[in-house]
Structure formats: C-alpha cells, structure tokens
C-alpha cells in the first residue's frame, strides 16, 4: 500500500458513509403507513395503485411509443417488473418493491415504479 491509497480509501469510506446516511434520511422522509405505487412513464404518472388494497394478483404490459414493453405484476403489498424487452433487465432484477421509497426503473423504456408511504387519497370526489 502506498501513501495515497490510504487517502483514497478514507475518502471512499467517507463517501459511502454519507451516501448511506442520505439513504437513511430518504427512507425516513418516505415513511408512512400507506403503500402507494406510482408508475411513471416519460415523467408522467400513468397509474397509481394502493398496494394494500390489491385483492387479486394482477399483471399487465405497458408499451411505449417505440413499441418496447415492460410487464408489471402487483400482489397485495408489493409490485415488480416481471418481464421486459430492454437489453439490461435492470428493472426485472430490481425484484419486488414493498417499502415506501422503493424504486425500480427501466431506463431504456423510461418507466419508473416508485412507492410512496404518504397518504395520497383524494381530497374530494366529484359525483
């Protein structure tokens, strides 16, 4: 080990600690008793699902303008990508999302699933 290696090591350890700290803060901010999954395509929320209220498991496929697709599955309390035609399959490998703050993305198809823990109910219903 050279002298500089120790400095690099120290900097990296500090970086990791800070990033973990931020992760903790992020989790804390997103805390809540709700499990609201938001599916966002091209920066637009296309679907909001209250995961606690899912009775039957359900799957559906989202297609984007270029014809690419991602298949999403919801079960009670959790949601995930189960299939996609993107090359890296990062979205599928993200596995189940079940906690507020969880995120899964498919960058090539620009789809993001996010779980929010805050009450996201409507204020009023127009009928």
């Amino acid at each position: 080990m050279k002298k500089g290696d120790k400095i690099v090591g120290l900097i990296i350890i500090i970086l990791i600690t800070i990033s973990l700290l931020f992760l903790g803060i992020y989790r804390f901010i997103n805390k809540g008793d709700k499990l609201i999954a938001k599916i966002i395509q091209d920066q637009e929320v296309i679907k909001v699902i209250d995961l606690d209220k899912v009775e039957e498991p359900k799957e559906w496929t989202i297609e984007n303008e270029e014809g690419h697709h991602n298949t999403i599955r919801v079960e009670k309390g959790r949601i995930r990508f189960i299939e996609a035609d993107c090359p890296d399959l990062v979205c599928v490998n993200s596995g189940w999302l079940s906690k507020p703050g969880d995120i899964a993305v498919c960058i090539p198809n620009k789809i993001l699933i996010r779980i929010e823990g805050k009450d996201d109910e409507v204020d009023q219903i127009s009928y």
Partner: protein
Amino acid sequence: MVFLILLVLTFSGCSKEKTSEVISETIYALGTVIDIQIYDENVDKAKKAIQESIERITEIENKMSVNKDISEVILINENAGENPVQVSEDTFYVLKKAKEYSKLSNGAFDLTIEPIVKLWGIGTEDARVPEKEEITSLLNLVNYEDLKLDESTNKVQLNKKGQAIDLGGIAKGYAGDEIKRILLENDINTAFINLGGNVVTLGTKVDGSSWRIGIQNPLGDRGNYIAVLEVVDKTVVTSGNYERYFIEDGKRYHHIINPKTGYPAEEGIISSTIVTDKSIDADALSTSVYVLGLEKGMELIESLDNVDAVIITEDKNVYITEGLKETFNIVDDSFILAN
C-alpha cells in the same frame, strides 16, 4: 461532489407547514348535503364565514326551491301563461344564466324541462316510464325561448300555461359560487365546498399543493373514483347517469332528460365533468355535454375559454380537453384515456 449536491437537492423538498385548524360544517339544503371545510389559523373568523354561508344558502333556497310551500320560482311556475312575476336580483341572475346556457347548448340544457321531469318523477316514489303520448304532449311546453326576462324591472314570465322551471342543479352551482365569495370576503383562502358532488375549491391546499379531486366511477359504488384531477381555485362538477335513476323491465332510466326527446339522454356518455371557475357555469355545462354526446359536447367545451371537461363514454373510454393533460390521471385501469 456534484452528486452530493444533487443528493442534498433531492431531500430539501419539504417546507414548513403553517399551523392551520380545520373547521368544517355540514348543512342539509337545496335538496342535498353541503359540506364546507375551511383551513385557517383563525377559528372564529372561519366560524363567522360558515354562519354567513348558511344564511346565504337558506336565502337562495327560499327563493329558488320548488320543494317549499312558496318561493319565487314556484310563483313563476304558478303564473305561467298569466302574469309576470317580480323576482329578486339573485333569482333573476340565475334565470338569466340558465337561459344563456340553454341558448348556448342549443337546447341540450333547457331550464323549462320541469314538466317532463315531473312526468318521469325520477328520484321520487312515483317514478315510472310515461306513455309516449304523455311525453309528446308535454314536449311542446319545453322551450327556453318562452321564458321572458325583463332586465329593467326584474320581471319574469313563462309564456304558456303549464310551463315550469326547476333551477335545482344550477341553483346548487350558484350557491357554491356564493359560498366561495363569502369565504373570500372573510379573508379565507384555503377551503373546499362540496355541494352534493359539486366541488368548489379555494386556492391551494395548506402545503401549497393542488387539491386532488376524484372523479366518481360511473359504474362503481359511491366514493369509488376512476381518476384524479389536480386543481387550484377551480370548481369541478360532474353529471352522471348514476345519481338518480330507476329500473323498469330491466332497463335503466336516469334523471338527465334530453329536452329534445323527453327521454333520458342516451348519447353514449355515462359521466361528464366540467372544470372551470364558476360552479353555476359548470353545472349547466356538465348537463349540456351529457345530453349533447361526446362530439358535440367536446365542440361546445372547446369553444369556451377557461373551461375543461372530462367525458366518460359507455365503452369506458375517457376523453379530456387539452387543458387537463398535465393534471389528470386515471387510477382505474379498466378505463382508458382515449385522446
């Protein structure tokens, strides 16, 4: 370091909230439940505003209801084809608006529909499907042109005997606007009012975000919404075939009567929602759009400034106007955004 800065930005989105109290009141008036909810630090001020609102609603009801012993509207109906009736500024304004929208919608909304509505009796115990002859004989009484409004004297008259008006829906819209005005005059800037499904909002929510208004699922239970609309300082009014109806011989008859046919409107729409500034406009327009059908309804809305609409058709397709593109989200995926 760039990403650290970005990280900090990510988490700095929360702001301090004011300590607002929630002051709410539920009133039964104008044949419906009226819910007022005020968010303000000053409880006394809010209570005073609510008190003034209740008085105003009672006043409006006394002038415009047809379910009282006496009201200005009942007087107009009783004097149809006979004498002009002197009415208050309030009633005159609402009648004028109603006539305006009757004209604008080319009779799809018609304030003189009352004789036919009464014949059907939808929403009452006597609801029934009338004979065809009964409808055709009453249909010639439905004509908004027969309502004469004299601006200079506030005198009102229906030309033919047997003609009648019912300001039900549009009076509800007017009451919503009046409550909003009273709250604003009392320096209340965060509140919502729900008049039997007509939503009126003041400003933004306490945290500065938009109000989230659910659109009732026309095929589901009350409280079940298919989409969420984010609004600031707007009113949202929905007309649907699920509000009042009866079923005879397996067929559903709802309360929105097409003034041209005398039968419940069946133009393929099951729910129409209007988003605009004034509830009185929204009420008349949501009925108009429902009766006009998708194509003509959309045409009407697009011809108006500052008015947006959400239309749901029988085949569960949802159509929205350009102005709602950013703020409208479907949450029930059995409904499909079609445009």
